[in-house]
C-alpha cells in the first residue's frame, strides 16, 4: 500500500450538484484518508459525501500522484465531468454546511480509511455553483 494525493479547483456540476468523484480502478480498492474542500467565493453550500450506486463514467480523469518517489503509479482517479448521470446512495457519510465566505470549508479525515471497492466512486457534493478547491489523500 502507498499514499497518493490529488488537488485541484473545480466547479459543481449543475445537473448533479456533484463537485467531483473519487473512483477506484476495476482491479483494486482504494482507501480514502482525508478529503479537504474549500469554496473560492462567498457562498454557503451544503457539502456532502456519498457512495455511488451506478458507475461514474469519467471524462478526462485525473490520476492520483504518489507522495513517495518510487511508488508505482496510482490506478485511482478523480473527475469533475462524466458522460452519464450516475445514481447515488440516499444515506450520507458526511454532511456539512459551509460558513458564508471564501476559503471556508471542511477537512474530513478517516484514520482507518474509507474504503472504495473496485469501479465504484465516492461523490463529493456541493450545491452551490462556485469554484471549489479539493485536496484528497488516499491509500492504494
Amino acid at each position, binding site marked *: 500500500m502507498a499514499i497518493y494525493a490529488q488537488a485541484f479547483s473545480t466547479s459543481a456540476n449543475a445537473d448533479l450538484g456533484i463537485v467531483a468523484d473519487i473512483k477506484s480502478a476495476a482491479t483494486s480498492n482504494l482507501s480514502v484518508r482525508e478529503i479537504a474542500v474549500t469554496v473560492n467565493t462567498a457562498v*454557503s453550500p*451544503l457539502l*456532502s*459525501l456519498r*457512495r455511488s450506486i451506478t458507475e461514474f463514467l469519467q471524462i478526462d480523469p485525473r490520476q492520483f500522484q504518489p507522495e513517495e518517489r518510487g511508488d508505482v503509479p496510482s490506478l485511482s482517479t478523480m473527475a469533475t465531468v462524466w458522460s452519464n448521470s450516475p445514481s447515488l*446512495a440516499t*444515506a*450520507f*457519510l*458526511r*454532511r*456539512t*454546511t*459551509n*460558513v*458564508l465566505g471564501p476559503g*471556508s470549508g471542511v477537512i474530513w479525515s*478517516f484514520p*482507518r*480509511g*474509507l*474504503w472504495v*471497492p473496485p469501479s465504484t466512486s465516492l461523490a463529493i457534493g456541493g450545491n452551490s455553483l462556485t469554484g471549489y478547491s479539493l485536496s484528497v489523500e488516499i491509500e492504494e
Partner: protein
Amino acid sequence: MAIGSLSLSTTVTTIGAAANDLLAASTIAPRIMEVHVNLGAATASTYGLGRSGNIPVQTAPVLLLAENPTDPAFKSGCAVAWTTAPTVPANFFRRVTLPATSGSGIIWTFPRGLMLAAGAAMLLWNLATNSAFTNVTWVADE
C-alpha cells in the same frame, strides 16, 4: 470491529428534547469515535452529548454505513424522531454553544472510543431552542 458512519439532518428545535440519537442494537456495544455538529441555519444553538435516561424507540432509523463495504452490515442506527422519545441524560460528556452563523460547528473526537452499552442510546440533546437544520454525523466502531 469495523468503522461505520452516518450523517443526518435534524429538525427538532425544542429545548429539553433530543435532536438526534445513536441507538445500539441489543446484541452489540459500539464505541463512538466522532460526533460532528454543524448548523445549517443562523440560530444560536446549545447542545449536549449524553447517555439517554431511557431506551428510546426510533422512528425510521437509518443504520450506520460501513466505511469498508466488505464489513458486515451495522446494527446501530440513528434517528431524528421517536415513538418513545429519549429522556434527558443525567450528565453530559460534552456541551457546546454555537453562534448564530450558518456553517458553524464542532467535531468531538474520542480517540479510544466513547462506549455505548448494548441496547442503549447516546443523545445529542437540545439545551436551548436550537437550529431547525443541523447536520449531525456519527462515527462508531462496532
